[in-house]
């Protein structure tokens, strides 16, 4: 184009003033704005990706001797390097470090040294100047525990029933072998606790509710009442027996896994005995080949996406959050698609086009710009308190005063988000309908089809990709939305998934966990932000990936469609 030619014809070395006069620097500056934006977007995604992915990599554990202030005896420190920074000596002194007077800049390293139960501090800053050379001893073991986070140390012995059976390398071999078996048993205990006992408890609660319901029904003849009471009592007894069997089974397993232990020496030389039952995983990070590290990486990643959270969400996996997010979005899609599509068809195909419809269209469009928290407030007041409260009064009086539907729940979250994303679907579907050449409609009508037939058999199928785009965008928006969900259904820890093997299988009245809220919760409301930080990045990465994939799909479909109709209408 002509203008582009002009933009760079200034090559014959004009004076600086003339160069400015032409406006070239401003063109470059505006180009710079794009460059800055691109750097920010890509930088941000890279930041999340790098930090999120690095979480699972078995990083090397360093060992060094540290001198806090000159003259002190060196202290041995082992741990994982978390991050480093360079600051001025003044700022460092402010932070409570001893820095020599003549020094101006200081580098410090944050070392994750684990052992929270032993030292109380699992992340500690160390000044570089006090450190000796870093060493990478091969015999450092890193142990992921069920409680108290990671443990770093040197494996000393392996014990069965409190008796030392093996020491040194031998201990390592036996420990690794036994750990595999113990882990299987621990998983089994977990399954019994979560599913079997959970199931019994669920049925127990149902019986309690039926008993309460019986109390509330006034007009029931006494013999019948007695019969039902007896039956409920029998059921309860059966359940209690079942519970006892499970409990006994659990106890036996616990006893079995409780027999094995290892003794590990900490960096301070203290010996700590850890039961194998409390160990999730143990590895020797400085003694692993790349292949072993990759296997470890894959394993950790799998555990992350398929496991349940532990330790106030700062450890373990995010399966409930992924599950909750997906289920919520699915229910939302089921609601929003028919309503959005039909509303769009009505607005575009049936409604008389005039100022009223134009106003409605603008309003619907603008609803997409209304802050999501407003929808959250609406959902809380209308769905949860008003609709949910009424449902409880009518259908679940026996459970009152504890609410069934009258408290935040996945159904209300889905409905609120359906309302929130309705404009997206309507606008996108309308756009899809508008792009269909009128020749197609007229052709169909001319062949004698009724309006309904024209719509359902020609127009709607052609507009389907547009609807698809709308739905995908809606899903992407819903998956990333957090503010309204905090009011209408998301919790930091849901004891039960909203879908399980207990009838009616899909528990719409349950609160759920959500990836976005998980990020907020672990990052900002957890007792140990530093320990949860890598997990937040990993969760954020998964959320970003889901959303980017959804969006790029939508963009691709839309671009493809535009091309298609452009060529058809030509």
């Amino acid at each position: 184009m002509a203008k582009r030619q002009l933009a760079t014809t200034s090559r014959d070395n004009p004076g600086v003033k003339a160069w400015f006069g032409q406006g070239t620097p401003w063109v470059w500056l505006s180009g710079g704005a794009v460059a800055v934006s691109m750097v920010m977007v890509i930088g941000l995604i890279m930041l999340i990706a790098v930090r999120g992915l690095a979480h699972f990599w078995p990083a090397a554990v360093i060992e060094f001797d540290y001198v806090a202030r000159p003259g002190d005896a060196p202290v041995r420190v082992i741990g994982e390097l978390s991050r480093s920074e360079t600051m001025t000596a003044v700022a460092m002194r402010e932070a409570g470090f001893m820095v020599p007077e003549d020094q101006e800049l200081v580098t410090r390293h944050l070392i994750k040294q684990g052992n929270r139960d032993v030292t109380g501090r699992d992340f500690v800053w160390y000044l570089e100047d006090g450190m000796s050379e870093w060493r990478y001893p091969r015999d450092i073991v890193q142990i992921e525990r069920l409680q108290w986070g990671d443990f770093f140390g040197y494996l000393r012995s392996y014990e069965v029933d409190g008796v030392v059976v093996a020491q040194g390398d031998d201990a390592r071999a036996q420990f690794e072998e036994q750990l595999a078996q113990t882990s299987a048993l621990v998983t089994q205990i977990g399954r019994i606790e979560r599913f079997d006992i959970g199931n019994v408890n669920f049925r127990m609660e149902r019986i309690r509710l039926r008993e309460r319901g019986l109390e509330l029904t006034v007009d029931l003849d006494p013999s019948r009442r007695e019969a039902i009471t007896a039956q409920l009592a029998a059921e309860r007894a059966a359940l209690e027996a079942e519970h006892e069997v499970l409990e006994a089974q659990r106890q036996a397993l616990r006893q079995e896994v409780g027999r094995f232990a290892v003794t590990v020496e900490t960096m301070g030389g203290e010996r700590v005995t850890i039961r194998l039952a409390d160990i999730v995983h143990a590895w020797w990070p400085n003694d692993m080949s790349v292949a072993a590290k990759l296997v470890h990486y894959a394993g950790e990643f799998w555990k992350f996406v398929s496991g349940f959270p532990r330790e106030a969400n700062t450890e373990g996996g995010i399966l409930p959050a992924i599950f909750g997010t997906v289920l919520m979005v699915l229910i939302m899609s089921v609601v929003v698609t028919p309503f959005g599509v039909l509303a769009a068809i009505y607005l575009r195909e049936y409604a008389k086009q005039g100022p009223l419809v134009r106003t409605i269209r603008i309003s619907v469009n603008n609803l997409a710009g209304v802050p999501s928290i407003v929808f959250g407030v609406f959902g809380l007041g209308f769905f949860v308190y008003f609709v949910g409260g009424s449902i409880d009064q009518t259908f679940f009086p026996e459970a009152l005063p504890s609410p069934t539907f009258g408290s935040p729940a996945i159904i209300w979250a889905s409905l609120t988000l359906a309302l929130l994303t309705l404009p997206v679907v309507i606008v996108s579907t309308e756009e899809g309908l508008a792009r269909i050449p009128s020749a197609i409609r007229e052709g169909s009508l001319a062949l004698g089809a009724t309006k309904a037939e024209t719509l359902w058999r020609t127009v709607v199928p052609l507009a389907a990709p547009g609807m698809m785009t709308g739905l995908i965008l809606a899903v992407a928006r819903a998956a990333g939305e957090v503010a309204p969900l905090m009011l209408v259904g998301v919790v930091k820890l849901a004891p039960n998934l909203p879908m399980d093997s207990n009838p009616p299988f899909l528990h719409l009245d349950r609160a759920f966990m959500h990836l976005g809220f998980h990020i907020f919760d672990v990052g900002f409301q957890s007792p140990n932000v530093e320990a949860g930080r890598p997990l937040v990045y990993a969760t954020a990465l998964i959320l970003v990936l889901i959303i980017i994939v959804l969006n790029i799909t939508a963009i691709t479909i839309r671009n493809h469609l535009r091309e298609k109709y452009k060529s058809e209408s030509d």
Partner: protein
Amino acid sequence: MNDTASSVASSGAAPGALPDGDARRKLRRWRAVKDYFARYSVGTFGVSVIIALGLIFVYLFSEVAPMLRPASMSVENRFPAPGGIDTETSYVTVNRHLELAVRYTTDRRVVFFLPESGEVTHEVDLPLPADAEVTAFTFAEPRTEIVAYGLSDGRALVARHEYNERFSPTGRQYRPAVFYPVADGDDPLTVVDAAGRSIAAIGLQRGAGGVSIAAALDDGTLRLVRFEERTSFMTGEVTVRRIVHDLPGLPQGAQATRILLDITGAHMLVGDDRGFLHYFDIRRPERASLVHSKRVIRGQDAEVTALDYLLGTVAIIVGGSDGSVVQFMLVRDDDNVNQITFIREFRSHAAPVTKIKPEYIRKGFATADERGVVQIHYSTSNRTVARERVGDSPLPVIGFAARANALIAVDDSEQFTYASVRNPHPEVSVGALWGPVWYEGRSQPEFVWQSSSATDEFEPKFSMVPLTLGTVKAAFYAMLFAMPLAILGAIYSAYFMSPKMRGLVKPSIEVMEALPTVILGFLAGLWLAPFVEGHLPAVFSILLLMPLFMIVTAYVWTTALAPLVRRLVPPGWEGAILIPVVLVTGWFCVSLSPFIELWFFNGDMRQWLTDVGITYDQRNALVVGMAMGFAVIPTIYSITEDAVFNVPKHLTQGSLALGATPWQTVTKVVLLTASPGIFSAIMIGFGRAVGETMIVLMATGNSPVMNFNIFEGMRTLSANIAVEIGETAVGGTHYRILFLAALVLFVLTFVLNTAAELVRDRLRKRYSSL
């Protein structure tokens, strides 16, 4: 269609290839029915969806509306005083379920009765000696439910009633009783003056340390009796120690009429017969002193006829014989000495005020006058919420129910009037929400948002001003960051960028738009905020050096390098060339940051800021500006790009043909034409910034401050809703105020977006006409 037709044909009886007329007619009718059905069902669905969306506004408004409704008071029943009209009522109150009321009389009885009918259920005789006269009566804070009688023989009786409710299947049962909390052994009476001087006025209060009685004896002596309660650490046993202090007297000639003690045990206020209020500092009773006296009534010959503390014993309400109702408080002056200070005035009565009665759990109170009018006021919002004439005769006594939902007024002929009160939201007024309010314990009127606290006597502070200011502040800094980047970037993309690069940039920006704000907020709070704190000089040097380096690069490129590498990098890729420059500049500034701190800021810029007097929070407006700016950039970018790109080509080509440089064309032709579009982009971006919740929630400290300091945080309307709505009582004032905040956000963004949409629409029409 064909399938249906053929299936009908094959099932029909008539031979031939085509269906007969009958079948065809049937089919036509069936199709018409389907068409009709589709038309109406789609119509119903469409309309109902639109109504559902409209419902949001209606619902939010319906939750806010009850706050606008005025309070009401309606007389339920009138009956002669339970327990006999031949004695005077000293005190009356109703329990919180409105099922039992109590009346203290001057002839030493406590009568429990049903408030609806006046039927007496229990009666208790107070152990007052028959040979002494009752000369004074008072009550402590209503929620303590204790009263005191002062006698002519220098003794006093402190009594407390209890309803003793019990739950049974048939309803609540009451076994009311009267206790004497400061009983001395078996004797419920306590000696105030051993010499037997008569008690002229008495004050009573129960605080954390125990019960205190203050009395003015008939010769003008002021005396304080304290019952100090000590709970033993070991046994949990409570021991009471009785201490008597003589206090300095009132100025010569003044006669005490009413004595008020506060719950902290630090202040005593004495009203006298000349309209003065005297403030005594009794923190150390042995060194008590009269600190300040002030005439609290305006008219020269007017008198103070009623005087009482509100809940929490901070605010003092004064009722005068001129009908005025005025609030005073103790406010510290410049020398840190408490002074009795005028705070606000409420709607006056037409006749002298006879009684002031505070509510049990709120900062509201009722006043009664000599012509039988009762008014209900609320302190914080400075409102008189209800006014009702319950009779024509003076009302010497009124009493609130514990939840302030009923009121009993007693007239001078001992006729009881029981009225129900509906007053759910007295805390709200335009002034309380948007104006400066002189809250209890503050030294001047302020804008404060502090919705709840741990104590019962807390005064909720619902000023929307700090929240609105915080919202504007966050949006302002976000726009400051986003506008230059987004608008310049959009102009470049639409006008200078090569199509190939555009194909890469546009999807990236769309991805940027789709990034969940919770992720931006988390990065801002956990990564950016500490980073900015540690590298403050870098942030500002980037701001300066980035454009500079870009221009230098541009100069070098266009004048020296371009002839050499022009073939390699086509025009329209300037942005791409600058990416390494951006990276290098960023890296350079960050590594330079500690040195700048050493050279210019004594080694620590944060400390330097504090020394200069600028507060620095780690999570501040700067961080929010960047994070929210990031979220807003794509919105502004897309709309601006759209507007600039659609400027008719013949305009720009004409300009270029006349010899203008591309940049001149951009500034003089393109921007002018597209300016409405850019304007609407800014409005929509602003709307998004105003409503954004998660970023602000995570990247600020959420403290409702009242300034525009870039290094301090803020609390926005939206974040406030997210933080607080889960903890409010459904249907309460706080709950409805949060709904009001949501409604304000809704309306604000809706109006902004609609205006922007209309502007864009007009622009589109103009483009098509050009």
